[in-house]
């Protein structure tokens, strides 16, 4: 605990990251109470107004207030991004560790590992976007199914990352030494292999949050995500991109900034968590 405080003092960027996440959380909880306009109310007379006093971030092509929409969208986007990333992290990391731990050994466990990796190959052989789209189309369009599909297509990335790390860590002398001390296999996997391989998994997790939101936007764009008037950063970006051509940059820029800053916050905090947990960095 004292070390965490010391770390924060030495790494002000982490505080910035924590503040970003904190602000995000406030938006998630109180978002709809903070906005000056109804985020889904079109006002075609006010379409495509630039940023100003009345509309801080301007209005989009339907005259909806972008500031209000960016704030209200936080609830949905964080739900999708964080939940999807969390699910793929907690499924992918253990599978990857097991695949690395048991892969290329004697016995049936090695076959299990091979089978798993070939399964991952199959998932990854589909273009991510198309695959997610098909999954949502089959299961029906709902936020729950979008989260499930986005999480599912991201699992192989975690499995692969963790497997490759586990494969190299398991050859380290301390793993063999632990085995020679008579430690059971489960403890070697859990206490020796996992903590020493999880680093890239955490970083990937934070990146996946952003990626999941972008993917959701793509899904929404083709009608497999959330329906159009719903405030959602990815959807706003893809809608706003059309206005860019004609010089109205604000409909796409502000949700883009919100998304970028959020991803940055999570990435910084994930990196900091990893560093706080690493005793050799103290």
């Amino acid at each position, binding site marked *: 605990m004292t070390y965490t405080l010391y770390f924060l003092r030495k790494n002000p960027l982490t505080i910035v990251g924590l503040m970003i996440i904190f602000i995000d959380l406030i938006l998630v909880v109180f978002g709809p109470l903070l906005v000056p306009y109804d985020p889904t109310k079109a006002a075609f007379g006010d379409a495509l107004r630039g940023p100003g006093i009345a509309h801080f971030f301007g209005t989009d092509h339907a005259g909806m207030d972008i500031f209000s929409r960016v704030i209200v969208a936080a609830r949905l986007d964080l739900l999708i991004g964080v939940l999807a990333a969390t699910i793929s992290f907690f499924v992918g990391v253990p599978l990857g560790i097991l695949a690395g731990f048991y892969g290329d050994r004697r016995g049936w466990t090695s076959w299990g590992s091979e089978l798993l990796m070939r399964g991952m190959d199959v998932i990854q052989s589909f273009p991510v976007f198309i695959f997610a789209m098909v999954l949502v189309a089959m299961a029906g369009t709902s936020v729950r199914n979008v989260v499930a599909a986005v999480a599912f297509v991201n699992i192989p990335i975690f499995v692969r990352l963790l497997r490759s790390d586990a494969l190299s860590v398991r050859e380290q002398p*301390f793993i063999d030494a632990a085995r020679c001390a*008579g430690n059971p296999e489960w403890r070697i996997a859990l206490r*020796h292999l996992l903590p*020493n391989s999880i680093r890239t998994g955490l970083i990937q997790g934070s990146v996946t949050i952003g990626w999941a939101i972008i993917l959701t936007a793509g899904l929404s764009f083709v009608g497999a995500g959330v329906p159009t008037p719903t405030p959602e950063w990815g959807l706003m970006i893809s809608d706003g991109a059309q206005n860019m051509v004609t010089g109205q940059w604000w409909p796409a820029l502000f949700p883009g900034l919100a998304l970028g800053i959020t991803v940055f916050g999570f990435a910084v905090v994930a990196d900091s968590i990893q560093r706080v947990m690493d005793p*050799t960095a103290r």
Partner: protein
Amino acid sequence: MSESLLDVRHLCVDLVTFKGTTRVLDDVTLAVQRGEMMGVVGETGSGKSILQKAIVARLPKTARVSGQILCQDRDLMELSEDQLRLVRGKEISLLPAGGREALNPLAPVGVQIANAIRAHNSSSKRYAEQRAVDLLRAVAIPDPEARAQAYPHELSSGMAQRVLIAMAIANSPSLILADEPTAGLDVTVQLQVLEIFAALVRDYHSATLIVTRDLGIVAHFCQRVAVMRYGTIYEVAPVREFFGHARHPYSRALLAAAKASRGEEMMANETRRLLSGGRKADVIENRPPARLEMVGEGHFVRVAE
């Protein structure tokens, strides 16, 4: 018949690779008696470490093994991986080379020792950790309560090595395989660490098979010595006999090399000390291992072929 603690018989290890098969251990027969300290010397690549790894069945996947490894009337070669786990650390423990490398960088050393204890009995976590502190005290680590919380990178290499000794001895095994236990330590620390190790081993009545390239260590600590080269044993002898009357030309070359590097006088003193008393092997075997010929009491030399 086997009063020996560890009885390795006709052990052969082949490494089967793409380039062909390499015989790394060739018909090794060796016995270790209860409570004795036996040295295995030889040059790099002579098979010393492979021998230890074969005993605890931690050879690379490409290895093909034949022969017998008898320990407490069981053939270790016939045990399953689960049964072997119960032997490793409990009856035979390995004191690995490499110091800090052999410790998990992300766990406090006290916890790692406690895990080694808990791997073999169902003691509570708290008890095992208390015991780990006692072991750290036994290996002369100052302020063991605080050091138990330390991570491997926070320890000096001498301390890391002592932690490994504590871990190796944690379940009072009857045999400890030590692989170059002091490689990479500076000379003053080497002696200190070895003294601690030898004293502990004596207290616990454990036998030790210590692999080293340092004949000084052998002279100082061991009762018997085996010389290895090209995966076979060239000579087995009680230490006093060896330093006085080594028979095999290779053994003599080793001794000469040690004299050259350590100084004539020092070796002479060491030899004199050994010849005038010193430590004496408790049990002398008089059964010549395969391909070795008896040339004196407990003294075997490889015959020319």
